[in-house]
């Protein structure tokens, strides 16, 4: 078990938080987060609701401004390089929402184009969707006919198409069946192998252990501990998690 805020690969971090804090009125949602995620790392943020996981992701996306500290993407301060930093990121929310009147291909083409990928061509778009796990036959259908799992796969395809340096995942497997969750983990693994830095907020301890390289446990807006998944078993992770999020572990 290690406790470090540095990238443990030695490479320059693609996602970095420096004393990152966020207040909503008198409530501190995130408290002095220090974090560095290197290329090829999958960092899983665990914690109960309200721990600050989604706030952290929102700060990296520039959706909210930090009260203190900095969020950096590939060394770019999100607050001062909003668009440039977003160009280096891909984001998959808990529920990927798409345009119901457009097909999977059309949705992917649109988001990819906005992400700066230009015109990918229909064949390439279908290829990416299939790579993301979508059935080839479904790619041309309107998204209004898709299940949640299929929409999540389009979300993954959007991330793949963007060829981003870093990937932000906010509860991406919530509500997915085990097969879909497993496919999702495999995809994250592939992206990790391509050198993408991944920050994933999740409640799923099993998925965090299975997919992540490091796990951070948050509570009351603070990162209370960090673990290397290579050095800990599933049972230990659950025990540590419960220790840190139980009431007697509070500040």
């Amino acid at each position: 078990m290690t406790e470090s805020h540095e990238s443990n690969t030695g490479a320059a971090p693609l996602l970095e938080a420096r004393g990152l804090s966020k207040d909503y009125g008198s409530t501190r949602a995130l408290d002095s987060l220090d974090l560095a995620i290197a290329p090829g790392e999958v960092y899983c943020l665990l914690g109960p609701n309200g721990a600050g996981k989604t706030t952290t992701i929102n700060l990296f996306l520039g959706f909210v401004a930090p009260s203190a500290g900095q969020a950096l993407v590939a060394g770019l301060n999100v607050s001062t390089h909003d668009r440039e930093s977003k160009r280096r990121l891909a984001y998959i929310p808990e529920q990927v929402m798409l345009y119901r009147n457009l097909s999977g291909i059309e949705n992917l083409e649109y988001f990819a184009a906005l992400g700066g990928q230009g015109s990918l061509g229909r064949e390439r778009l279908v290829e990416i969707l299939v790579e993301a796990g979508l059935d080839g036959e479904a790619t041309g259908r309107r998204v209004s006919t898709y299940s949640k799992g299929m929409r999540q796969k389009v979300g993954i395809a959007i991330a793949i198409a963007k060829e981003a340096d870093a990937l932000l995942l906010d509860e991406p497997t919530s509500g997915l069946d085990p097969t879909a969750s497993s496919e999702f983990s495999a995809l994250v693994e592939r992206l990790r192998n391509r050198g993408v830095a991944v920050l994933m907020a999740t409640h799923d301890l099993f998925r965090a252990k299975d997919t992540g390289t490091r796990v951070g446990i948050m509570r009351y807006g603070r990162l209370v501990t960090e673990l290397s998944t290579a050095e800990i078993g599933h049972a230990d992770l659950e025990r540590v998690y419960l220790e840190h999020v139980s009431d007697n572990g509070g500040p």
Partner: protein
Amino acid sequence: MIHRIVRKEFTDMIRDGRFRWSAILVGSLLLVSLAHGWVQARKASQEHAAAQATAREHWETQGEKNPHSAAHYGVYAFKPRLALSFVDEGVDPFTGTSVWLEAHRQNDFLMRPAQDSTAAQRIGALTAAQVLQHLVPLLIILLTFGAFASERERGTLRQLVATGVGWRELALGKALGASGALALLLVPAAVAGAAALVVANPGPTASPLARGAVLAGAYLAYFVVFLALSLAVSARAKSSRTALVFLLAVWVVNGLVAPRVAVDLSKRVYPTPSAFEFARTVEREMADGVEDIAPPDRDESTQRLLAEYGAERVEDLPINAVGVYLQESEEFSNRIFDRNYGALWDAFRRQGILQEALAAAAPSIAVRTLSMGLAGTDVEQHRHFAEAAETYRRDLMRQMNGDMTENSLTGDFSYAAGAELWESVPPLEYEAPPLGWVLGNRILSLAVLGAWLAGAVLLASTQVRRAEVA
């Protein structure tokens, strides 16, 4: 990148059944109202032409009679329908388009059906102008109220913004996408309108094509105002429902409340008499005269002529003293008419200016005023025709009384003129005012609409930048 957003918005919209049906409805109403207006205008023009020819024929074939009797026989004058009047019939249904020109009377503003109508009655039937001023903005609202608000609710806005697309590009793309969808119904209507103008073959009078181009520009600006307002509200509203309710309230105030308030307020600030009051006032003043305008005295007139010609008896005069007196009566009536109609026109002008200024509260007032002006159916162009007709009437009376004066003697009741005199009177050749004259009258409306356009775009620009993703 913007073209991608435009294409997506356009595709998304036209695949939306709600848009398809509402666009079909509004587009159909627009085309039907244009077609109906064109048929009505063409029919009215043909009827006017036929009636004008008949009236002329009656004038020329009225037989031999005293010229003053011919002056009482009178002629009808018909206000020509300008080519664009099929788009906006304006005040024509209320002011009328024909006038009987006769001796001693200026008939135009008497017996107008709308003289005592309420402000609500002035709105009239559904015309292309009504569709453009009311239904198209409603369609714009329905298309765009959720541009940001619905995307925020659905969660797609987070994903969109996460791609790195700029707010301004997003707003511009959405605006152009919605414009493309609207163009599906507006472009055919514009083409139909232009074709109607060409088919109508209006000639160079009143520059119809230039008027049509400016009219299209004015409506385009009006639509952009609504588009920008809708995007601004959608960007900042807490929910799409809030955005829709707010925008519908704006639509109601703009299209239904403000125009009526503006009319009623302008009538309150610059009151005008009812048709009955006006007629009574003119009648009274014609009978008694007013300060500085006294009715002619027949004895004085006779004495002056006797002195002028050195005659002792009217029978010795080389001219008909009655003809001179009748013309003096005409001149007296004309001064009474000028005094009363001048005040009435001035009140109408002040009412119009106040209404145009009140467009600062509702752009529909500005575009309505411009629309009527460019269609040639506003109060100013009615006045332009009425004054031309009145000038013609006065010339006609002067010619009739002059002929009687020159060609008969006082007390000679047997004198009768014939077709030669009637044919020597030229028909009324009315030329509608040019575009520059119309725009000169509508400077205030142009300025207010321009201010609305700039303000709405600025508002959209600032509000979209301040939009939140969740």
